[in-house]
């Protein structure tokens, strides 16, 4: 064992510590940790973080390792702390519509448990069901269902956070309406583990809808699809999701569908029929496919998995009415990939939110200038979006690119508070990641 792993192992008799080859699957944005530790309790997490704070070891909290390529790369990783062995569902009260589980509990386990009581967690973040509850909250990203149900920040009721220096904070509670004090939980949501490690989470649940129906509309091209998605999102009815899906260059050739707009309706049967009638009327054409129940859910499960195997994932945003412009802007990314490599570039947009996800299978490294070209292209695109009130986020990408371009854009004067917030939770700075959140 290397000295760090040895010391960790000695001090933490109850938690498993691995080093050497065993850490390879736990690289964070290409940085290999010196040790990976698997605590089994909140107390052990507190021990690890407080020891790391004393020793100045840089830590990255993780779950099952699905998000390690995402976000801002840390400068170095000494210890990766995985919540994988903390996966108990500690409380589920169907009558009160909440579930509380340890951070390492898988979303699939939650789904099977709540499904038995006709309830569900109405969130579909990227990555699919193999993700953990803790990672979902730490990343904070929403999927297509945000149109109908909001994002993780709107549905989290409480969480336990072990701060960088090992303090245990119980944040929020088990009830939906709760304004007892400052909403520290909001800071933790989407903080990418830079304030501490989330060890348990309490989420609000919804009743399973009587009808789950998806309508798929075909469009001639991505631009037409974007127009249609905008028009359908403006339907004055409560649609659960309106998603534009543009398959990759490679996928079209093998007979996969052309661009689609998928509309998800989660209602009672009568209401779903009515919504279908209105949506079809707005689209000027009948849907090419109409999926019900599990098949409807499956289409949107595929949307969650669209980032799988992508080397570069971008999130471009503007006001929802400008989705067609966002789609148009992706033509500027043509130099970054070779359409014949893998499936090329896929697009998926949450039409209600004005968020376009761009997934590139393989970043082209055909000549020496590839990195400069990528950095320039992304930098210019980010600046033009920011000038229009939008943004460009690199959700995951080759570390060389993220190091140079930064995962997030400039925060402006709000960055004033970033350092202070981080120091309040992680005074030794062991959880700091390169850029923002700093």
């Amino acid at each position, binding site marked *: 064992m290397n000295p760090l792993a040895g010391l960790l192992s000695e001090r933490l008799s109850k938690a498993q510590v691995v080093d050497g080859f065993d850490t390879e699957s736990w690289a964070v944005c290409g940085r290999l940790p010196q040790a990976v530790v698997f605590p089994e309790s909140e107390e052990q997490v507190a021990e690890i973080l407080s020891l790391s704070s004393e020793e100045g070891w840089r830590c990255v909290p993780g779950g099952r390792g699905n998000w390690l390529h995402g976000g801002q790369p840390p400068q170095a990783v000494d210890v990766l702390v995985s919540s994988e062995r903390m996966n108990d569902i500690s409380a589920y009260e169907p009558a009160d519509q909440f579930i509380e589980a340890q951070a390492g509990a898988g979303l699939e386990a939650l789904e099977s448990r709540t499904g038995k009581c006709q309830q569900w967690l109405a969130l579909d973040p990227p990555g699919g069901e193999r993700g953990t509850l803790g990672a979902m909250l730490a990343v904070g990203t929403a999927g297509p269902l945000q149109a109908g149900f909001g994002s993780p920040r709107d549905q989290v009721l409480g969480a336990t956070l072990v701060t960088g220096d090992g303090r245990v904070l119980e944040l929020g509670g088990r009830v939906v309406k709760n304004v007892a*004090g400052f909403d520290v939980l909001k800071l933790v949501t989407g903080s990418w583990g830079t304030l501490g490690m989330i060890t348990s989470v309490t989420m609000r649940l919804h009743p399973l809808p009587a009808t789950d129906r998806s309508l798929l509309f075909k469009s001639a091209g991505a631009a037409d699809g974007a127009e249609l998605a905008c028009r359908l999102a403006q339907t*004055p009815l409560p649609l659960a999701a309106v998603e534009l899906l543009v398959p990759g260059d490679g996928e079209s050739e093998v007979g996969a569908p052309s661009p689609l707009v998928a509309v998800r309706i989660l209602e009672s049967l009568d209401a779903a029929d009515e919504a279908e009638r209105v949506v079809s009327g707005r689209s000027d054409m009948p849907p090419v496919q109409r999926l019900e129940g599990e098949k409807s859910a499956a289409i949107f499960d595929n949307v969650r998995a669209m980032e799988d195997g992508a080397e570069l994932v971008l999130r471009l945003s503007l006001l929802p009415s400008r989705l067609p412009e966002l789609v148009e802007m992706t033509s500027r990314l043509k130099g970054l990939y070779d359409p014949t490599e893998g499936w090329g570039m896929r697009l998926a947009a949450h039409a209600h939110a004005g968020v376009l996800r761009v997934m590139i299978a393989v970043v082209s490294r055909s000549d020496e200038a590839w990195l400069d070209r990528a950095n320039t292209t992304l930098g210019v695109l980010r600046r033009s979006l920011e000038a229009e009130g939008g943004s460009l986020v690199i959700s995951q990408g080759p570390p060389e690119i993220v190091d140079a371009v930064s995962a997030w854009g400039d925060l402006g004067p709000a960055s004033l508070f970033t350092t202070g917030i981080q120091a309040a939770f992680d005074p030794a700075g062991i959880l700091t990641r390169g850029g923002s959140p700093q």
Partner: protein
Amino acid sequence: MPEPLTKELGNRLRGVVGDSWVIADPDRLLAYESDGLTAYRKTPRAVVLPRSTDEVSRVLSILSQEAVPVVPRGAGTGLSGGALADGDAVVVGTARMTDMLELDPVNRLARVQPGMINADLTIAAEPFGLYYAPDPSSQSACTLGGNVAENSGGPHCLKYGVTSRYVTGLTVVTYDGKIVEMGGFGRELGGYDLLGVFVGSEGCFGIATEIEVRLLPKPEGVRTLLAIFDRLGDAGRAVTEIMAEGLLPAALEIIDGPTIRAVEASVFAAGFPTDAEAALVVEFDGIEAGLAADVQRAVVRCREAGAREVRTADSPQERLALWQGRKKAFGAMGQIASDLLVQDATVPRSKLTEVLERISEIGIRHHLTIANVFHAGDGNLHPNILFDRSDSEELSRVERASTEIMAVCVEAGGTITGEHGVGLDKRHYMSLVHGPEELEAMRRVKAVFDPLGRMNPGKVLPDPPQAARAAP
């Protein structure tokens, strides 16, 4: 009376906002001596009423240079004493900042000044088929800036969620006059969710001077039903059963027997039987075609739970009549008692009946009338204690009963405030729900925004523990 402003400071502030908008005359200051929680009264040193972000920034910068604490104030409808100015603090009010800055119906977005009244936003959005969802009971008077400060709720947040779900961007002025933008619809920012933590910070972090909110399309249809029960517990059971059906009503509201009798004895009489012990209002909204079936299922559940009468309403006029008793409950109680303490706590829904019984026992034990009006669907209770402020012995019983009610709600897994905020009133209850580490974390977060403790001092957080108690 607090010490008046020095002539020089008064002049500097007048130089920014104009002569008429710095109020220092003791008679006029009386209007600012309390908010909706009238049990507490304090006269501020002065009130400044700026008109724009720039003026707020200049006013705060001047006050900061003079080390004068600031208490932000909207319409003063808050129910936790959050807008009271203590000691040498100056009130900075948003009463003149009422402009609609932008209404974008296509993106369902509005940008407003913080002094705009909640209901006025919905009125402005209505021609476009849109509305603003959070609907606190005071919505015809309360301001959106106040709603941001309190993270306000309302009857319809059962289905639609509270203010934080609708605020997408803020322009904030900090204690020293810095102007900071937070969030913004149509962009995803890195960094921490400053917007999220600012909403609900009760004026302790800064003043929101521009607010961007999401609007919703008006529901295609609305259906309301009213069920009358002989036992409060039965009404609670009906709520549990309706939710267990997998229905998600827009609102599920209960008023109890004492409240029914207060309403019926007042000019707001709504035609409730005065021997009933609970009235349950259930409202569904959404796609028209699905509503009739939802209402039918709820009616069946109410009957099974023991409702002696169920009325349904389809037309807006009929709906208004069913809501009358619920909406006018506070006004009615004001007519039968000289003072009213409106309490606010949340419990898990399944504990409602048990907690209400214990609240009733507390009332009997302290010889107080406690009338309950509450958002049953999300377990948000409003036990209202009727009293006479001039009777100091009664007032002390009110305080003891309040403390006991809070303890009962926390013990049941709930919290000390669901929508009214902590303010001045509940800061000493904070340690019932938060440990020393959590309170310290909140202190540190406040210090990031307000390192010198100038914004709304003495609110939300209890005084830090003495050095002797601080050791873990």
